[in-house]
């Protein structure tokens, strides 16, 4: 066990939030059994949302994204415990690499073949709930606060799933202008929904 790593890792659970991702990775690899579960839980707490985002982007449905979260973090924790992560300083890249491979595997096999095993204790502790759905009534009000053109661009982008080139072609705008309008509209909606305070 590395005393240096250990000393950087605060013992109280809430102090772990100050440790870097790399510190947590080192701690899981080298820490004593009583410390490891807390470090594992904190690492999972941090990476579950990131892997879930990746899964939602690359896989077809939210359940598949949740499968990906579980597989990715289980493998990450096992590799860390066995000391098989060669560079814990780059733990984020390692997790991303595992997520990519597992997403490929899920797509190849089809998610129905994945049978959920017992969850890792750290995952059970750390799995943050799905982000709460935004209040539709409030969001509807926020949408109506946008200018007509901004609202059109938001609906075509996020509902009709058209890219900036397609939206621009339909509405007579350049793709660059669509991106600017879309960005402005999203910032307005984030502020209107109080999301800009949650995630600066």
């Amino acid at each position, binding site marked *: 066990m590395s005393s240096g790593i250990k000393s950087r890792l605060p013992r109280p659970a809430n102090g772990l939030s100050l440790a870097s991702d790399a510190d947590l990775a080192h701690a899981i690899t080298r820490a004593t059994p009583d410390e490891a579960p807390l470090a594992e839980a904190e690492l999972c707490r941090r990476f579950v949302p990131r892997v879930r985002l990746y899964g939602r982007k690359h896989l077809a449905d939210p359940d598949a994204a949740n499968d990906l979260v579980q597989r990715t973090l289980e493998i990450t924790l096992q590799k860390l415990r066995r000391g098989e992560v060669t560079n814990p300083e780059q733990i984020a890249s390692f997790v991303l690499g595992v997520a990519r491979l597992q997403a490929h595997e899920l797509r190849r096999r089809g998610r129905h073949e994945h049978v959920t095993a017992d969850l890792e204790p750290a995952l059970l502790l750390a799995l943050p709930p799905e982000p709460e759905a935004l209040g539709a009534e409030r969001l509807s009000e926020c949408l109506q606060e946008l200018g007509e053109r901004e609202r059109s661009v938001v609906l075509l982008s996020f509902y*009709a*799933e058209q890219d900036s080139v397609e939206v621009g072609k339909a*509405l007579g705008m350049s793709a660059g202008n669509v991106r600017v309008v879309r960005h402005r509209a999203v910032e307005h909606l984030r502020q209107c929904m109080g999301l800009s305070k949650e995630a600066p």
Partner: protein
Amino acid sequence: MYGAFQGGTLTQACPLSTETLIAYWLGELSIAEADQVEQHYFACASCAGRLESITRLGAGVARVVQRGEVNASVTQKFIDHAVARGLSIRDYHLSPGHAIACTAAPLDDFVVLHLALTAVDFGAIDAVDVAVEWTHADTGTRQEHVVKSVSLDRTLGEIVLLHSGERIRELPKSDWQMQAILHGRDGDTRVGPYLLNHTPWEQLPHS
């Protein structure tokens, strides 16, 4: 392509611009750019959080539309997408100078007005407003307003106005007159009127 990239390299370490995160989420980045965005947000709680807020907004917008709770100017492609996702759409196609009867049925999620713009040089149009005049059929009460800067579906050459079915169902028997005001380099042109006679569903003879 995007602000945070230059020559294929992520030059601005943190935070990624919101524009880049939106483009990533909507699949507009090259594989190399998307790869760099992923490398970044896996190591950056702030950017991951901001990306998550964008995805929540996107999902929220889709939910608002699926609940029929938005009014907007859109495109035919948007309407096709809504129909494909199971929404009930009542379409009315209007030509200048013609009147049509309209209503909203109990299960209509949206009522869509297609205002045809004929003999218009779309390349010369900078902006389009729609002037709306509404008259209560029983009391004669009149109201006017202008919807500024509506979007124009240039693919089809029409204005596609999406109205919440629930809001249309709240309207009394009324007459509507609309005019498209086209702002161009050579001044303003008015197209219309587009005339609608609205009758609440329950007051129609079949009810």
